[in-house]
């Protein structure tokens, strides 16, 4: 990283958005670059209009919508159940948590109860999803920094073990479509818990290995420390959630705050960062994975027997009473919320997704100002976006 960036920190620490086009007067000396939409570092079809002064970023506007399919309009035209498989495609790394967030909102709307065993299954699958997401993200981010291949392949190797678990549980590796309103679609197959236990027992070994491989690496530290600093006040005001918020030192984890599902039964800590830079975001995710493993160990030991779906929940002809509900969970990327308005018909009147990576992009410009183009790539990587969710 450049030492100048350290000496001259980004200027816009005040909590207020900048107006566009403030540099247009002296455009002659600046260079405008369009990064993306087809660029390996943008994690999908995502474009950034970057204005450069030499190699420094003076203005950056994210441009997206290339993957826009109006998920919300589709949701309003489909029945409640038919939207469930579409939620898999929002953040296609974390279909289980997407399912859960949607199911949670509908359960709030219709007043359904979830049986004990289903709650445990949900926690187990959600925490496994968190492992998948964070493991992959670390691989991608390191790849963005130039460590081509090796760390990403190690991450994918571990991810595959969890995806195998998902496949034997739900039938699909990524598009699980597993949760239903008032429970889960089917019970665990025989031997699944033992397999999951094995994966969970072996995972810390991989995390240790990964930590030895990467986190002490001088190049990685030089590239990521003090890069893309996100101050606490801005993070709160901009509605940043998830590991990014906690890396800035704000102790806010919806699993602790809302205690949705049965998260109040497990003991786990919320890792917090000090500086809010890219390195902190990496480290917070690594520590979060260790806490997830702790939750998994507790949940796998204490999962009870019983039904997995509320007997009152109907599959066909599901019509909740008129009203509205907002349900949210702590998805791996941040707060994933579903806002539903029912008018008593089989389709929701309003179906809204509050995507974490979309809102987290708000501060991309603030974090990138004053840094070089190479830093923009890793700052974007540390935001952890998935374009299926940003564009919807």
């Amino acid at each position, binding site marked *: 990283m450049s030492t100048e960036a350290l000496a001259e920190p980004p200027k816009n620490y005040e909590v207020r958005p900048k107006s566009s086009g403030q540099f247009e007067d002296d455009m002659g000396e600046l260079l405008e670059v369009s990064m993306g939409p087809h660029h390996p570092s943008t994690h999908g079809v995502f474009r950034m209009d970057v204005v450069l002064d030499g190699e420094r970023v003076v203005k950056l506007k994210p441009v997206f919508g290339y993957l826009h399919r109006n998920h919300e309009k589709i949701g309003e035209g*489909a*029945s409640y*159940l*038919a*939207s*469930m*498989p*579409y939620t898999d495609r929002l953040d296609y790394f974390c279909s289980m948590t997407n399912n859960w967030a949607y199911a949670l909102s509908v359960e709030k709307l219709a007043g359904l109860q979830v049986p004990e065993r289903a709650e445990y299954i949900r926690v187990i699958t959600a925490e496994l999803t968190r492992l998948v997401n964070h493991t992959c993200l670390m691989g991608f981010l390191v790849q963005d920094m130039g460590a081509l291949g*090796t760390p990403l392949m*190690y991450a994918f*190797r571990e991810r*595959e073990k969890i995806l*195998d678990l998902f*496949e*034997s*549980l*739900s*039938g*699909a590796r990524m*598009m699980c*479509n597993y949760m239903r309103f008032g429970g889960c*679609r*089917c019970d665990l*197959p025989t031997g699944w818990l033992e397999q999951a236990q094995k994966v969970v027992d*072996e995972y810390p070994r991989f995390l240790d*290995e990964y930590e*030895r*491989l*990467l*986190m*002490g*690496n*001088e*190049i*990685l*530290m030089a590239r990521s420390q003090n890069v893309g600093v996100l101050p606490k006040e801005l993070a709160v005001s901009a509605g940043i959630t998830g590991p990014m918020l906690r890396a800035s030192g704000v102790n806010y984890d919806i699993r602790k705050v809302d205690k949705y599902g049965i998260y109040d039964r497990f003991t786990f800590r919320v890792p917090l960062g000090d500086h809010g830079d890219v390195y902190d975001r990496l480290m917070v995710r690594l520590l979060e994975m260790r806490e997830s493993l702790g939750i998994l160990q507790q949940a796998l030991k204490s999962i009870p027997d019983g039904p997995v779906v509320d007997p009152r929940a109907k*599959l*066909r002809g599901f019509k909740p009473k008129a009203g509205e509900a907002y349900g949210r969970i702590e998805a791996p990327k941040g707060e994933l919320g579903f806002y539903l308005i029912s008018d008593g018909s089989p389709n929701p009147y309003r179906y809204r997704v509050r995507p974490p990576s979309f809102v987290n992009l708000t501060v991309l410009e603030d974090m990138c100002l004053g840094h070089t183009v190479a830093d923009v790539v890793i700052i974007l990587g540390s935001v952890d976006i998935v374009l299926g969710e940003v564009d919807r």
Partner: protein
Amino acid sequence: MLGEGILKGMVETARNFAGSYVSKDRLTTVEYPEERIAPKENARQFPFLVFDGNDPMAGLRCVACQICEKECPPKCIYIEKSKDKKPDFVGKMQFYPATFDIDVSVCMSCQICVEVCPFDAIKMDQEYELSNDDRFGGLLLNKTRLAKSNEYYGKMHPQEAGAIDESRLKTKEAAEAKVKADAEAKVKAAAEAKAKEAQPPTAPPNKGA
């Protein structure tokens, strides 16, 4: 020491490299066309229609109720009801699908059709090598291409198929018993009617149902 972290990382890479020769955990790839991993029991690809017996078209369980067509999120199922009816496995007259098409280029393998089907007529297949050079026609599966036997399904999901077969057998037996009972009752009623008609009885009541 500067470079210590890099060296440590290199040691990890070397360990993984060497380990990939001895440990299956470190080398998980499979050389695909030559070597295949057996699909998991729950794995799902695209739906197919189950038929009983030997004749695929006569034995289709589907009664063209069109619930799956309605519930399908991407609307990839297209059903046309038949004009006439044919007896189903219990002997009840039912419609059958004159056309049953699934556009697998649209299908997203969500399994909702399977969940909502009250007749166990549509199930998920595990066949995954479906690449085709005809983009539209080749991926539009019609009734004949969709129909697969109950034995095929039983091989994929032995427990599930067994349970379904058992419950179907029970329904069938119950229905047969009911038919039998009905017939007997009819005979009895007819006999009684006859007996009433011709008093005293001269001819034995032999014209039952």
